[in-house]
């Protein structure tokens, strides 16, 4: 039985739970119609963000997707500014201009979050080029869905990253669907982790609902990348509990086979880790304390957001360009 430091386990748990609670808070608030931005929730997928970002420093670069809340939280972004962004406020991380799909914060290495499927992949490769160019020892990580593995830029980016041996970590969150399209009707083989092989990029696959397994794989890949050995690809198999967009589950609409969602809910990454933690002597009290602390922080973020001012009308036209020389 592998030994993990107590603090390590608590950190993992705390990040994963923070994501879960953040998303659940959105679910409970959404009916108020004050969060007016399309939310792509990652409930059920939290272990991946937590297990990967555990190994990242603030200076490392991260690119995400339309389903970005979890990655931003795990990278350390400020909850207040995230929540305010969902509320469209001036104090939001993007000043209210980005919304749920484009959460970003350069201070945490999240320069731009794109909702174009696959679009973030070359951006991350480019950031990695910049890091290498500047001889920084930081890395770039990009999260993307199984849908992005359909897109040509994915392959072009793998090719380029391998060619230039760039410090970039490709993390695929395979939840088996792109909107309502199952992976099977889009890809002839279920082997995303192997797609980098023909470019010489090592690929790994893991249970994306097992945060320890994710962190183990991610840790190894990231060590390799930091050591200058070039890119790596990790496919994490997981499942989204909610509909593609919005706070409801869409299974009853016939979007997914009956029973599939409930089967995956039984494999809840948070619950699974909680029972592991219990076995490792992290007590129920301690977990409850963590949960209470996180809930309070999220509650505070909601209050912050709601009390924040709107952008000013003139800001509609600022930040289009910088004016130039």
């Amino acid at each position: 039985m592998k030994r993990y430091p107590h603090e390590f386990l608590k950190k993992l748990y705390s990040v994963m739970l923070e994501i879960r609670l953040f998303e659940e808070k959105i679910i409970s608030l959404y009916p108020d119609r004050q969060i007016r931005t399309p939310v792509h929730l990652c409930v059920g997928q939290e272990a991946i963000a937590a297990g990967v970002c555990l190994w990242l420093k603030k200076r490392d670069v991260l690119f995400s997707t339309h389903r970005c809340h979890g990655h931003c939280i795990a990278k350390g972004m400020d909850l207040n500014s995230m929540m305010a962004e969902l509320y469209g406020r001036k104090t939001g991380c993007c000043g209210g201009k980005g919304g749920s799909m484009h959460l970003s914060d350069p201070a945490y290495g999240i320069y731009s979050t794109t909702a174009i499927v696959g679009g973030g992949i070359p951006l991350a490769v480019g950031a990695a080029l910049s890091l290498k160019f500047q001889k920084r020892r930081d890395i770039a990580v990009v999260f993307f869905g199984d849908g992005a593995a359909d897109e040509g830029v994915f392959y072009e980016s793998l090719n380029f990253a391998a060619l230039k041996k760039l410090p970039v970590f490709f993390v695929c969150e395979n939840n088996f669907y792109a909107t309502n399209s199952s992976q099977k009707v889009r890809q002839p083989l279920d082997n995303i982790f192997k797609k980098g092989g023909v470019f010489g990029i090592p690929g790994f696959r893991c249970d994306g609902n097992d945060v320890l397994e994710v962190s183990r794989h991610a840790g190894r890949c990231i060590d390799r990348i930091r050591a200058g050995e070039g890119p790596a690809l990790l496919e994490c198999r997981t499942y989204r509990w909610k509909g593609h967009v919005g706070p409801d589950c869409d299974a009853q609409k016939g979007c997914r086979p009956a029973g599939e969602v409930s089967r995956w809910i039984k494999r809840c990454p948070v619950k699974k880790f909680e029972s592991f933690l219990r076995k490792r002597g992290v007590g129920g009290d301690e977990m409850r304390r963590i949960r209470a602390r996180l809930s309070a922080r999220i509650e505070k973020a909601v209050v912050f957001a709601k009390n924040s001012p709107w952008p000013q009308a003139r800001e509609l036209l600022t930040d289009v360009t910088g004016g130039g020389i």
Partner: protein
Amino acid sequence: MPWTTIAIENHTRKLAKDPGEGDERLLTYAQALREAQQQALRRDRRVFIAGEGVDDPGGIFGSTLGLHKEFTGRVFDIPLAEAAVTGIMTGAALAGLRPVLAHMRLDFTLLSFDQILNHAAKARYMSGGRSRVPLVIRALIGQGWGSAAQHSQSFYPLFMHMPGLKVALPSNAYDAKGLLLAAIADDDPVMFIEHRWLYDLKSVVPEKEYLIPFGKGVVRRRGADVTILALSLMVPEALKASEELLREGIRAEVIDPRTLVPFDEGIVLKSVAKTGRLVIADSSWRGGSAAEILLGRLCNPLRPLLKKDAVCVTLPDSPTPASPFLEKRFYKDSADIKDAVRKVL
């Protein structure tokens, strides 16, 4: 050819008749699109429909709902690979089929601009007219609820600068059906640009098949005081504006060109010859907007007709903001059109 037996709409007959009047069958824009595709699939074995989500429980907001059940293998989902898929549809069209490719958002077509402009639009010319690309690319414009910068673009003016391509911009259910059938019947590639906010609007839609010819606009409402040239979602906004203006005694004439390429210049000039005033209501960005392009094209013939400067209602030159506060200021509606009308009077 299976298409020659469909009546081409008698253009003049529809003049001044608002869709929606009469006691005939009402359909939503989404239903009309669906019916057009259903009839095309029935009429012509070469027609098929591909697109992300065409066969899912949403059915592209209802516009393809359930068609995959009636037409097995001819209405199918695709990988998220907009570039290749557009090429694949173009290749299928070259080799004898009549594909309809559907995009949930116009924004995603940017991934396929090479296949649209370098390939589909040029294949006929490059082959000296011996090859054809009877391809329809349907794409929706999204709007609102914080859709933000990448899910709400309405850059249809870009397609006005692509020789070989035709561009339809249906503004109501009746046109949606007739233009889509005409697009599918057409031997050239057509960008068929829909607006999400029109999807639930109803108008009278005959059950029979009918084709609306490209390049023929329609006068949606007659009036002698001012001409409003309106595009896509701006057509119902202009109609609303003109109803309200009527209460102030202002009689606006509302013109819907229905297609941007080819474009019916005559109908605009004829109207302005009468009114001497022109407002263009267009929901694309100001710089390089359809409004600027069309005003530039018509600048000379308009000069002697206009009694006052024309006014363009467009989106400002910025990406779409997410915040509802900013979004409200970004978009234009009937109130902006009314203001514009007052300016030209």
